[in-house]
């Protein structure tokens, strides 16, 4: 067991770094399930699952077992992948909103021209 940062605990074996349970404090299904999805879509991952040990404890455990790569590396890349994914969704959403607003802005002008 190793304490990595304030909100994170790692549970795994010293000898085998391909299987680690990451215990995230103050997180829930929101991040747990999103990470589980990203990790399961990583070909280096042999198994991944998450659980919330108790509903009144603000904690989520994410289990990662890999096919040989360090579980830590894979977990890190999953986190950065999720962040990249979010940023892309944000960019796409903002672009769509902008286009929609531009369209909405144009319409009343066209109506005015027709009524003239």
């Amino acid at each position: 067991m190793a304490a990595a940062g304030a909100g994170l605990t790692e549970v795994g074996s010293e000898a085998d770094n391909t299987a680690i349970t990451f215990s995230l404090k103050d997180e829930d299904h929101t991040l747990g399930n999103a990470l589980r999805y990203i990790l399961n879509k990583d070909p280096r991952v042999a198994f991944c699952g998450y659980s919330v040990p108790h509903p009144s404890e603000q904690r989520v455990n994410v289990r990662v077992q890999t096919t040989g790569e360090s579980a830590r590396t894979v977990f890190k890349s999953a986190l950065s992948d999720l962040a990249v994914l979010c940023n892309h969704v944000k960019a796409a959403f903002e672009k769509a909103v902008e286009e929609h607003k531009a369209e909405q802005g144009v319409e009343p002008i066209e109506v005015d021209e027709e009524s003239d």
Partner: protein
Amino acid sequence: MDTEKKKKKKAAAAAQEAAGASTKLPQHLQDQKTRVFCASDAPTYQNVSYSGAYMASRIDDSLNMADFVKNLKVEIKSLTEEEMVFDIIGIDPAIANAFRRILIAEVPTMAIEKVFVVDNTSVVQDEVLAHRLGLVPLKVDPRNFEYRTEADNATEKNTIVFRLKKRCWEEGPKGAETRVNEKVYSSDLEWLPLGSELPPDEETKFTAFNAPQTAPGGQPIAPTHPDIVLAKLRKRHEVELEAHAVKGVGKEHAKWSPVATAAYRLLPEVILKEDIRGDEADELVRKCPVHVFDIEDLGPDGKRATVARPRDCTLCRECIREEGWEEKVALRRVKDHFIFSIESTGALRPEELFTEAIKILTDKCEKVLADLF
């Protein structure tokens, strides 16, 4: 030699064909992967999360950022100051649900947290009135404020102070009096940009601000809706209090939730497995309570049923309930097509709320990443 060349060519073509064929799943598996089937008894949802699940068909189901970027589509369907509906196509439920959960529970807003009652002779008890005040949505951008802990003093950066003072009396000739100030409305909350006017208190730390609060756009900070009834008064009843609003998130108390609803549904897909003509077409149109189907007039060939408004389908399955109809009509949902609807309580516009939610998920990732190093 010619025959040898031909053979080679043939083999190469066959290999290419095999490779080409292998990039696509067999139709039934592709359907299973991308659709939910809504049969008359129960829906079937097959969820395969493992990236190597389709390796037998030589399909790599791992997350490829380039493909994700290519396939993701966002379409705004309607957008007003309070409400928006949009489609996100090409995303997994795990991610869509994360956004929904964050919208409800983790995007901050300002709400009344502490109420200091000077006088309350109305029939509404202090604690009930305080609770009602807490639930009043405030039209103020939470991004301009900081969180306040119990140890912090109230400042212009973490607290908004409102004063509420109202007294009811009767006017007019005896026997025909009319009541004045019969109701306490949310519009009676008067913003105090200079902070509390009550005497300073060590325990509660409600003090006047050092600098006056500024409201963006020159509009005073006020509740979103002016017409919420907070209490009813009778003759000589009076309410005088000070309400302090602070920043918080919905997972602590629902009053801080910035959305009235944030929900998604999967896009319904209605498929006519065979041509439905004549009286059967009329019957199908009649069956559907939300009018998904229309009749197409084919002139001399009679009429045919068409799926005109699949988005309106509620999957009530009324069209396939009767015997024999399930062979004619298939109801499905598209697994990666989310119809999101966000209804704001008024603090932020719905599109701002969604971008805030995405930012919060990114921040979560970065926080854990920072802890890992």
